């Protein structure tokens, strides 16, 4: 539900023991894992039950939606009428641990799983996901998928998942504050963005204009892209990191300067994610925005239920606009986060799995599900209809969704770069703490290039 968490940084310690034991015992007992994945091409027999892993917390609306899908599934495929569908809600924060445990122990694995789209390439290369190329090729919805989203799920010509929903970040603001501060239109350049942030800060003493947490790769990249830079580009199979190009540096400097020189972001966000201290689900920019202590903050539309939970006091004034590019007028490209649906590699019922996925990802079901949680469906036919223009909150995000990018956040080694080594958050934290700009960016750039190419920093 939270694409930021789809680059799940914060694998909890829950599964540590099991993994550790398994790692050390692996050689002794001929492998903890399933060894060679057992493939079953028959799949004609109806399974007694299918396990579906969903990410995030279960909400009543989601449960209702899923029950509806299951009953459609039973109706559409009478052969599965007696197949129970078991849904397990896995928190984003422990998803990677759960995946690792399921793969390494070969136990308690799902049949069908939702998976953060930035994780799909890594997990496919680790052997977690089944190859569903022929199934997808025969799928009627394939041609309607937003271009590029399926490419993210493809490796060496094989498809390992299908897009389910997507989301982009934009900037949350309050219409009442903008009006009171005399801001008549939402900013479309960086200069306007900072001057508006300062105006708001002046109008509302004690608040900060625009939150800039340092541990926020998925927003920081928008500023790199918004100045015309790239994080890294791939040519002939080799990655070249470009964090130290003049354009990228302009973006990084702008973001760091939100705290350093413009002082529109407080020091406590250094080292934090948009949700507060790493590992927390509140206490950061999200909570401060809902409480009226922060005037603008960067997040996706999916944050709304949590904001409401903190405080619905200013709810009627909440609105959004896309992250501006350096010189406008079109917005900065936004990171296209979201979730895919995939079949687990060792599932015994691949045919049934795929039939269930088709039901969950049908045009109407995927659209209703995306709308339910503040996301956009992955189908062009649904996005171009102008269905989101009428909502104050969604219209800005819908505009942002028209200019998106995902590379290199879907590179095979991106998880190592961002989850294990945290190159961009660490660099941004150092910059905000006053480290030498050129040296810090250059060293991060070298590390990033090494990791993207070899999986190791040095």
């Amino acid at each position, binding site marked *: 539900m939270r694409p930021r968490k789809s680059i799940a*940084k914060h694998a909890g310690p829950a599964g540590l023991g099991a993994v550790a034991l398994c*790692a050390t015992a692996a050689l002794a007992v001929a492998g903890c*894992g399933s060894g060679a994945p057992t493939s079953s091409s028959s799949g004609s027999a109806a399974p007694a039950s299918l396990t579906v892993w969903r990410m995030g917390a279960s909400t009543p609306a989601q449960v209702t939606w899923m029950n509806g899908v299951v009953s459609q599934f039973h109706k559409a495929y009478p052969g599965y009428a007696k197949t129970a569908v078991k849904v397990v809600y896995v928190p984003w924060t422990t998803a*990677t641990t759960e995946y690792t445990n399921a*793969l*390494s122990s070969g136990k308690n694995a799902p049949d069908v799983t939702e998976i953060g789209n930035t994780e799909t390439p890594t997990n496919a290369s*680790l052997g977690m996901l089944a190859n569903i190329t022929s199934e997808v090729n025969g799928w009627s919805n394939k041609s309607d998928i937003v271009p590029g989203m399926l490419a993210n799920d493809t490796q060496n010509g094989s498809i390992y998942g299908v897009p389910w929903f997507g989301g982009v970040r934009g900037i949350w603001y309050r219409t009442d504050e903008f009006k009171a501060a005399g801001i008549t239109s939402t900013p479309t350049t960086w200069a306007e963005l900072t001057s508006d942030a300062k105006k708001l800060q002046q109008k509302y003493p004690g608040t900060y204009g625009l939150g800039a947490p340092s541990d926020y790769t998925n927003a920081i990249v928008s500023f790199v892209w918004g100045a015309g830079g790239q994080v890294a580009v791939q040519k002939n199979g080799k990655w070249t990191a470009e964090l130290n190009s003049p354009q990228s540096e302009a973006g990084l400097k702008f973001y760091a300067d939100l705290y350093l020189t413009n002082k529109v972001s407080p020091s406590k966000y250094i*080292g934090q994610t948009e949700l507060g*201290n790493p590992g927390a689900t509140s206490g950061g920019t999200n*909570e401060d925005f809902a409480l009226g202590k922060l005037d603008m903050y960067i997040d996706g539309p999916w944050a709304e239920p949590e904001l409401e939970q903190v405080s619905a006091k200013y709810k009627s004034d909440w609105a959004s606009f896309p992250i501006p590019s350096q010189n406008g007028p079109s917005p900065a490209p936004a990171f296209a986060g979201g979730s895919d649906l995939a079949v687990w590699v060792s599932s015994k019922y691949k045919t049934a799995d795929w039939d269930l996925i088709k039901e969950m990802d049908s045009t109407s079901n995927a659209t209703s599900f995306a709308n339910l949680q503040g996301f956009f469906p992955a189908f062009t036919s649904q996005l171009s209809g102008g269905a989101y223009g009428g909502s104050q909150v969604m219209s800005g995000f819908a505009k942002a969704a028209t200019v998106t990018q995902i590379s290199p956040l879907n590179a095979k080694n991106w998880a190592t770069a961002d989850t294990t080594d945290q190159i961009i958050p660490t660099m941004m934290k150092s910059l905000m703490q006053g480290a030498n700009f050129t040296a810090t960016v250059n060293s991060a750039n070298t590390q990033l290039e090494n990791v993207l190419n070899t999986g190791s920093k040095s």
Partner: protein
Amino acid sequence: MAETVESPGRRRLSPPAVGARPDQRNRPGLLARAGRRRAASAPGANRPGQARAGAFIRRHRLGPYLLLLPSLIGIGLILAWPTIQVGILSFQNFGLGQLSGAAPTQWVGFSNFTNILHDPEFWLALRNTVVFAAAVVVLTLLIGTLVGLLLHHLGRRMATFVSSATLLAWATPVVSASVVFYWLFSPDGGIVDWSLSKLPGWLGGGAHWAAFNWTTSGALPAYTVLTFIVVWMGFPFIAVTVLAGLKTIPAELIEAARVDGASPWRSFWGITYPLMKPIFLVLLLLSIIWDFGVFTQTYLITGELGNRDEYNLSLYAYDKAFTLPPSYGLGAALALILTVILLITTVGYVRASVRQGAIS
């Protein structure tokens, strides 16, 4: 005067305080007695085969080893074998792909080790670990000893009250303690930031403390919080152990010293400390080992794995070994490096103390 106070203590009293020699004297006797009893009561003792085996065991003095065997097997299974496995893994590229069979396992020589030793973050984590351990070991031992002495001097009721209060700190689950301190130091309404912001400037307070983020603003503030937690949870054990040691020191010795006009300071260093040196040594070793590998508190306070400038070696190893994509080979290499560092530290102390004759 120092002579008259120290020498009798050393000669006559340190053996019972150490507690090793009487034990040693008893052990052969106990075993022999046990052997005899078994031989007499065993129903098949008159069978020649068993008698011969018994004789063989006695002649070669195998009894103690046989008794040790079950625990040796246990240790071999749960300690030695995994250690060997870790050793093997540290020379391989072993990760999740290798575990699932998606990629081949390869021998990579020393590259896991060179990778780690060339990573500046490893050295940063090592520095954090060593400085933090040094500070915490000194503080826990110091505070623990002082509280132990206090408990020794308090009346029965007050001692019970103080010791239960300190033991509560020790018994608090690590996660609860970390969360409590996390709240105390929270930038959003934590009492520490609030108090500091209300303090006058000449006391180091001021408005800049409001919303100061202790746990993410670098190693110094984060480890300040961690020092509070770990010392708070660690000193009661030291205090209770020191108290137990103090109870073994005959009151006459201290009294004699007092009669001779020794200050409490002088009698501590002249009597108490030499007699309790073995206890302090064990406490020191345990504290070093514990405080070198503090994981749970560090993980929770520094924001799981989100702030790399605040890593200690445990977090660094966990990050390398277990975050996706996991690299068990790298983690194993790190575990070996950590073990070697700890061995160097502890072996040094043990050798020094053996030479001093503190451990016989």
